[in-house]
């Protein structure tokens, strides 16, 4: 509705310059600055990644991806992602449900806590885990006695990834679920549905695009996380190196083709994510619009 009014208004004013419109040279200067900025800081580095990766031909580039240590790093990254994303999805849905549909004491505290990983530097996060589970940490001696290793091992990497990607799903769902309210769920209850049936048949279908969007962002971050993982990993080649850590190591070893080949792989993943994200944003906006077209605006048809 707003769109059509605006359109009509603009077309009516098409010939005369609008009062709020700047002269042409200002527009072109602004567009130029934006394009230059994007070119220098975004497109050029990205092109460089692919350029460097393929500097010695396709074979070398793909060959460096099949290096056993790189394969091990790929597996570890996949493992950390496959554990942290489902966990954070379940947690995110539960937390968003709790915050959006219920009133309780400490709600503000929980909302702030969910945002904590956004505000804490990843390196600090890593250090906190070292302080807790490292040999000299609080639980270190106990863990050592029971032969459990967390820091400089896979569990530490998974924990750090979970912490860093903690807010993505919840943050995405809270505003959506708040806009939707709990009327539909209550209606399902009066029709005899249990809480679980209500969640499965009513809540989940109405948040699915938002949820998927959150999961995509969460996955992208889990794959790309460097700081926190770097602190807890210990950089043991072939054992505790994730893909981003592997890139850093190869780069330091002056193996730029291999480093950039992996970087190119991550860049492709990022571009895919970006495409998916754009499409999902569109779907999700529709979901949100639907949530807001409540039944009190009866006659658009």
């Amino acid at each position, binding site marked *: 509705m707003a769109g059509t009014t605006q359109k009509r208004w603009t077309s009516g004013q098409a010939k005369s310059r609008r009062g709020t419109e700047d002269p042409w040279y200002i527009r072109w200067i602004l567009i130029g600055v934006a394009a230059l900025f994007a070119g220098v800081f975004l497109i050029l580095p990205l092109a460089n990644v692919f350029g460097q990766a393929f500097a010695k031909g396709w074979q070398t580039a793909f060959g460096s991806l099949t290096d056993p240590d790189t394969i091990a790093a790929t597996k570890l990254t996949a493992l950390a992602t496959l554990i942290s994303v489902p966990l954070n999805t379940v947690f995110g849905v539960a937390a968003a449900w709790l915050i959006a549909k219920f009133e309780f004491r400490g709600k503000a505290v929980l909302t702030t806590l969910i945002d904590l990983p956004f505000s804490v530097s990843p390196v600090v996060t890593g250090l906190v885990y070292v302080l807790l589970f490292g040999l000299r940490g609080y639980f270190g001696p106990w863990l050592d006695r029971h032969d459990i290793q967390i820091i400089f091992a896979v569990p530490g990497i998974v924990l750090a990834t979970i912490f860093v990607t903690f807010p993505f799903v919840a943050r995405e769902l809270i505003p959506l679920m708040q806009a939707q309210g709990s009327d*539909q769920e209550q*209606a399902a*209850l009066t029709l005899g549905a249990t809480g679980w049936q209500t969640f499965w*048949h009513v809540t989940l279908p*109405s948040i699915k695009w938002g949820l998927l969007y959150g999961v995509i962002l969460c996955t992208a971050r889990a794959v790309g996380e460097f700081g926190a993982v770097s602190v807890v990993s210990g950089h043991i080649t072939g054992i505790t190196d994730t893909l981003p850590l592997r890139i850093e190591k190869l780069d330091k070893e002056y193996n730029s083709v291999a480093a950039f080949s992996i970087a190119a792989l991550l860049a492709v993943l990022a571009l895919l994510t970006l495409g998916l994200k754009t499409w999902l944003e569109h779907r999700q906006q529709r979901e949100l619009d639907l949530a807001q077209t409540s*039944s009190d605006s009866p*006659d658009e048809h």
Partner: protein
Amino acid sequence: MSIELRNISKRFGDVAAVQNVSFKVAEGELVALLGPSGGGKTTVLRMIAGLEQPTEGDILIRGQRVNDVSVQKRNIGFVFQGYALFKTMSVADNIAFGLKIKKWPQAEINDRVAELLKLFGLDGLGKRFPHQLSGGQRQRVAIARSLAPKPSVLLLDEPFGAVDAKIRQELRDWLVHLHDELSVTTVFVTHDQEEAMEVSNRIVIFSRGNLEQIGAPQEVYERPSNEFVARFIGVLNVLELRVEHGVARLHELTFPTHGVAEGSNLRIGFRPYAVQISPDLSEYRYRATLKHVYFLGVQLRLELETPSGLTLRTRITKDEFVRLGLAEDKEISFQIREYRVLSRDGFALSPEVSAVHQLPSIAENI
């Protein structure tokens, strides 16, 4: 199915939303819960449904205490204020939802959905989604959905609140017909007294969490149990009189004292139809100017202003208005045919005491 509330109270934290409310709804009745917003009527409806738990008191459906019966097991149909249709489901799927949950066989579900679509005038709309429907259609889908599993009680929260005036009238008539046809015990919440009067067999009036009166529409209109009800159901002119020199008086208007002591106050109220007017200035006792005329169709609402600035409201038919040759700003004479004493010295009176008092219709001084 009969519903009974016994000494129901509900508190939200420190706020008492409903206070010691008791009433019965007989099998097959159509009852309105009426009151201003914040009166507690929706809370009462939600407690009957099981969406809220009473803090005190018992709720009985067909004589069985249901306080501990969950909302799923109470076998009620509930229509929400904004309809709360499932937005990701088609109309047919919305209606079928309760049946699927109750594990009806698919063939019976299909038959029931088809039957309801027909009954509710939604033929051919089964595949549409809620956002593709008009307000009136959405409302009918919401009612069809709630009735699909054959509930023993139908509860509606402000069912006509979200549609425009014309459709609202259609839906009212339609609800009455539907109730006649299905004769399911129905309770609905409204803040619109006209709607309550028109649709229901009986009205339960709430204000600030208290039950003010319960009765048939005509009963609560003609014999309101207190000033709140009298003012809420229809229009009421209220005058605050002071007893001086043996008469109760407000400016030029005088009434009998009704035993109120000299210097004390007396509050009276009267309906618009109790005010008689005439273009003949000598016919009735008081003078006034016809300040405003509001056309309501067959009836007109008039606002009189006395020389001392009092405003009184009255009603007259259009034919009468024309016959008397009335017009805005015209001088008229009037009298108050009957009235009710609302309170003495600030104390509200019971309905028996505040019986209607007739005034002699000739222009004489009291």
